Structure formats: structure tokens, C-alpha cells
């Protein structure tokens, strides 16, 4: 579980998609996700599907991984399909008791479900092909222009790194406190609402207090070493936009152009 947390969903590889600059991937993902909402005809969905299959193949991510990214949301996906099929008014094609499936409902439901699947798959591709560290770097660089309005880009990246480093520590601590309190006879699983809420106190209060103590120590240590943020900091790996990245933007531009054209011409 811990390695799961540290690596995130990253699937190491050497494909063209892996090699793109994280900034390019973040921007392209956002643009492409928004263009998914442009699709409202069968033709547009076929184009989208073809393109998504193409980038999955390009990224060399095994299809089982892609399916796994859908797993946590499958209930809501199926529910969406059913709600649309049975509640959209139109010509009835099938009846089960009081429920009537309509032709329009099937069409609408399929569109919405496929749109959800596309949304999830495309954005999962970003995290499959980019390590959390590279993405953090990319986010920091992308947020840099917003420093002027007070968004601390560097500090956000720093906080993400600290949080990531402390998740295993605090998990272990939670476990330790839980066992310690259970050894003292604490009971987390019975009693009425009031009792249970009270019983959470001996678990949560020590956990929070110890986290705050760690935070105090860390802040003191950082100040003792004269930490002063990202100002004038140099990096080991500089991000660089190369020909690959412009190529990616070009391809994405064509796809979005086609989608807009399809939307305008086929109504």
C-alpha cells in the first residue's frame, strides 16, 4: 500500500507520451477534456474514440490498467446509463413494469456514459504517463505566472512534497495510537452515536497533537536552515519544451478543429 501511495498511478515507460514535458501534458489534457464536451453526434464520438485509442496505443499502457481506472466509478457510470434510458421521454421501445425504456433515452444514456468514460480515461492517461514528481514540477511552473496575484506556486509544490513524505509516518502513527488505545480498552465499534463520537477523541486528538508537534519541529528546522522559498533556487532537472511538445500541440489542435467542424456542420 505504501509503494502505491509513493508512486501514485505512474506506469513507468519510454513512450512518446512519457517523454513529453509535464506542462504540455497538463495543458493538453485540460484542452482535450474540455473538447470532449463539444461532442454531441455519433460521428464526433467515433472521432474521439479513435483518437483516445490512438493515444493509449502511443503511451503503450496495457488496456487492463485503463479499465482499472474506471473501476472506482463504475457504479455511478451504470446508474447514469439507467437513469437516462428510463427517464428520458420519447418513443417507447421496451417496458419492464412501470419503467419504460425509450429510444431517445438509450441514445442520451450512451452518449453521457461514453462521455464520462472518456473523461476518466483521458485524465488517467496523464497520471499513468507522468510521475507525481514530474507533475508537481509541471504544476509549479504552470502556476508561476499567478505568483503576482498571491498564489504561492513554489510553496504549493513544497507542501505537496512534505505531505507526501509524512503520509506513511502519520499512517504508522494512527495505527500505533489505535492499538495503544485498544490495549487500554478503547472501543471504536459499538455504543450509540454519542458514545462513538466520544470514543473518537482518544484516537484523533493525540494524532492531531502529534502532527502539530511534528509541524512545529519541521518549521523550526527549516527556519534554522534559513529556508526562504523558491527564490533564486536552481534545479537538477530543468523542464524543457522541445519539438515533441509542439508536435503534440499541433495534433491536439487538429483534433479540436475537427471536433468543432463536426459540431457546426452536423446538427
Amino acid at each position: 500500500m505504501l509503494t502505491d501511495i509513493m508512486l501514485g498511478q505512474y506506469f513507468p515507460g519510454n513512450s512518446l507520451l512519457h517523454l513529453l514535458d509535464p506542462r504540455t501534458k497538463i495543458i493538453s489534457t485540460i484542452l482535450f477534456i474540455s473538447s470532449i464536451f463539444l461532442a454531441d453526434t455519433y460521428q464526433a464520438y467515433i472521432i474521439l474514440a479513435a483518437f483516445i485509442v490512438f493515444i493509449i496505443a502511443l503511451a503503450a499502457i496495457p488496456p487492463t490498467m485503463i479499465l482499472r481506472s474506471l473501476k472506482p466509478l463504475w457504479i455511478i457510470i451504470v446508474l447514469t446509463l439507467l437513469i437516462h434510458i428510463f427517464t428520458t421521454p420519447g418513443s417507447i421501445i421496451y417496458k419492464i413494469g412501470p419503467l419504460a425504456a425509450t429510444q431517445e433515452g438509450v441514445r442520451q444514456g450512451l452518449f453521457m456514459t461514453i462521455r464520462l468514460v472518456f473523461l476518466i480515461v483521458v485524465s488517467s492517461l496523464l497520471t499513468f504517463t507522468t510521475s507525481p514528481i514530474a507533475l508537481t514540477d509541471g504544476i509549479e511552473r504552470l502556476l508561476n505566472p499567478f505568483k503576482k496575484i498571491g498564489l504561492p506556486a513554489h510553496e504549493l509544490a513544497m507542501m505537496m512534497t512534505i505531505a507526501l513524505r509524512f503520509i506513511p509516518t502519520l499512517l504508522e502513527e494512527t495505527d500505533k495510537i489505535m492499538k495503544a488505545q485498544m490495549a487500554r480498552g478503547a472501543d471504536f465499534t459499538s455504543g450509540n452515536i454519542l458514545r462513538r463520537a466520544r470514543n473518537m477523541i482518544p484516537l484523533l486528538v493525540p494524532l492531531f497533537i502529534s502532527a502539530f508537534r511534528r509541524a512545529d519541529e519541521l518549521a523550526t528546522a527549516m527556519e534554522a536552515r534559513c529556508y526562504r522559498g523558491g527564490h533564486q533556487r536552481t534545479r537538477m532537472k530543468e523542464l524543457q519544451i522541445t519539438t515533441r511538445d509542439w508536435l503534440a500541440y499541433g495534433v491536439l489542435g487538429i483534433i479540436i478543429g475537427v471536433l468543432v467542424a463536426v459540431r457546426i456542420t452536423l446538427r
Partner: protein
Amino acid sequence: MSRRNNVTDFVYAALFAALIAVLGLVAIPLPISPVPVTGQSLAIMLAGSILTVRQAAYSVLTFLLLGAVGVPVFAGMTGGIGIIVGPRGGYLLGFLVGAIVIALLKGQHNNKWRLALVNVLGGIIIVYTFGVLWLGFVTGMGLEKAFTVGALPYIPGDLFKAFVATVVGAAVNRQLQKAGSR
């Protein structure tokens, strides 16, 4: 609150972001509903109840960004932008706004009744407003159905969590005041 400079704020926010992630992994057995619920939204309410506005905003933002870059910190050990733009993404944005609102309105005196009220407002009403609006939009199912599917079944559990957040938040605040830290 912060006597020292900004570093303290950032580090507190970072540690709390880690706490939010950790509490999301701990299943809380509920007395009312058979569905085991995680402490994620409880942690969000606690972030608002314990931290300053700045710290609360940064900690939830850090937590969301961690999830966005693929660290599996969201409900059910999931992560990635897919979850944020997916049908459940609205709740996540609601977490950010909710925590800020709780921190803004909780007041200075660690008053339990007030804390309970703002926890229900920020941790439940605001979170579900964002959650249901986005769920309704992205699935095209409309607001009424989105509410039935995406809010109604969870509200009893969340009321319980708001209660726990109030009791625990007040206790932690009392301890921190006693310790005189921050």
C-alpha cells in the same frame, strides 16, 4: 495566530494535508448506515475547525493537488485528475470551499454550538451543493436525480461526522490553547 513567518503556515498546511489523506484511509464504522464511511470529509471539517483560514485553504488545496497528480488519496484509494473531473469531482471542490467557510466562520472562542453549526454548513451543505451541481451537469441527469443519488444516502453519515468533528475539533483546540503553541 502565526507569530512566526509564513513557513509555519505552509508546514502546518502540509502536515494537515497528509492527515486528510491518512484519515481517508481509515474506515469509520457508522452506527446508522451499513456503508462504511471514511474519515475524509471528517478531516476536511477538522481542517476548518482547527486551522486558520490560510492554513485550511492551503492544506485542502495541497490535498487536492496531491490527488490530482495521481497519489491515491481520494475516497477508495483513488487518485488522478480523472477523479477530479469525473462525476464525483464536485465534492472535492466543495471540500476546498467548505473548509475555508468553516475556518472563516468558526469564531475565536472555541464555542461548540457555533462550531457544530459551521461544520454542518461548510462540511455538508456547501460540499453537497458543489457535489450535486457537478454530478448533475457531468452526467446530464439533472439536479433532482443527482441529489437523490449523490447526496441523500450520505447525509446521515455526514451529520454524524459533523458531530465528531465538533467534539474532536473543540478538544484539539483546547489542547493547543493549553500548550500555547502556534
